[in-house]
């Protein structure tokens, strides 16, 4: 037995509350990130990712408290992304109990920022999140939720970010995000083959076979999904049992 492929539920958090709905029968407050995280942990999630979609700096402060609370009682790795722009933002999240911090647009605007924070805090806690979209015969990175093209080639960018010290790549296909037709496995495989660090596939999961495909066809080290878990279409346990049946090594 070797290293298990990781299943990572992702929670969108707005001003300290989980949005996009989470349906667990036994949960009293589906908007409470602590309660939702506790539940995912009990179901066997290998990590949890929180995406702060808050608009204002004041509300962002709330995220720090959310992380503190979750980290005090959920003992699996926690990643926090969204609005991380300065080394101070990284420090605050790590001190609150995050294990990893995901950086997206701040890396695009200033690649040196990634070098700065990996030097200071270590590669193991810096994830670079990449939003990629197919343009003709290649993929380009986009910012602003996939609306703004940058002209930067996604594969080259992933390689550059790992050269700058990123310890992991969180790769989202903006073509697939929200479609429920599966990951862009071609994109995932191209990135996974190009970088020496783990790659998390994201964007497009609609059923459990998609998770398997992301690993087997995409070569991903981990798969991230939001809605299929939030709406209790599938539990994490069901996902893992299915993946195990399909020959994917998972932590049961």
């Amino acid at each position, binding site marked *: 037995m*070797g290293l298990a492929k990781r299943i990572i539920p992702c929670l969108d958090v707005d001003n300290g509350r989980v949005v996009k709905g989470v349906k667990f029968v036994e949960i009293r407050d589906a908007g409470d990130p602590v309660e939702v995280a506790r539940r995912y942990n009990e179901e066997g999630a290998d990590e949890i990712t929180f995406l702060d979609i808050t608009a204002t700096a004041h509300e962002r402060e709330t995220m720090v408290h959310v992380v503190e609370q979750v980290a005090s009682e959920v003992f699996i790795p926690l990643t926090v992304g969204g609005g991380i722009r300065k080394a101070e933002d990284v420090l605050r999240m790590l*001190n609150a*109990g995050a294990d990893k911090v995901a950086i997206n647009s701040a890396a695009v605007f200033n690649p040196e920022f990634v070098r700065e924070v990996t030097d200071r805090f*270590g590669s*193991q806690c810096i994830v670079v999140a990449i939003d990629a979209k197919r343009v003709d015969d290649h993929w380009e990175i986009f910012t602003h939720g996939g609306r703004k093209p940058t002209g930067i080639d996604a594969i080259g960018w992933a390689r550059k970010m790992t050269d700058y010290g990123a310890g992991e790549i969180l790769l989202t296909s903006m073509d697939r995000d929200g479609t429920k037709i599966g990951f862009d496995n071609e994109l995932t495989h191209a990135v996974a083959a190009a970088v020496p660090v783990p790659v998390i596939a994201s964007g497009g999961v609609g059923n459990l076979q998609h998770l398997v495909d992301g690993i087997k066809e995409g070569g991903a080290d981990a798969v991230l999904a939001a809605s299929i878990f939030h709406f209790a279409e599938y539990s994490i346990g069901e996902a893992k049992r299915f993946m195990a049946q399909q020959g994917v090594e998972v932590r049961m």
Partner: protein
Amino acid sequence: MAQKIAVIDYGMGNLRSVSKAVEHVAGDAQVRVTDDPRYIDDADRVVFPGQGAARDCMAAIREHHLNQAILRAAANKPFLGICMGLQVLMRHSEENGGTGLLGLFEGEVKRFDGLAMGDNGLPLKIPHMGWSTVHQAMAHPMWEGIEDESRFYFVHSYRVVPEDVSLIAATTDYGVRFTSAIARDNLFAMQFHPEKSAATGLQLLKNFVNWNV
């Protein structure tokens, strides 16, 4: 009187998760994150975590004047090393062009060479990040209630190679079979993170809190 557990803080990485996880299983014990050598000397048990580069860790330990306190604790009371808290117990690391370590045990800390292939046909990723199985190489009170081959959470690019194989308490496979835990007398140190290994990790920490050396 409630027992005192010191979590050694030398400025390398956030220790909140470690202290919270120990508190979670420690009952009425007093858990304190500290860089005070006197408190460490006075504690009933000592947890020695750490992350980051070997050279930075050693510099931080020296800056905090903790070398002797760490070695004293490792010699005479239940002592739990985690991640870098395992690696720096060795003699020497390849990291940062070669770094001298605390030297409690003879042995080298080596980087994964990145040559091994994974089951998906791509080279194994470095860091080794995620949940791997831990093979228990000896019977030990720290394994109480933990099944052999249980999975724990790892994140590291370097591994220890102790000269004395009788120290090896666990092994893990990642391209190569490496030592994932060592034990001797009152000391137990592991490469994985019990504070991030869900219920299995908490069980191990609980075993440490209850460990009568």
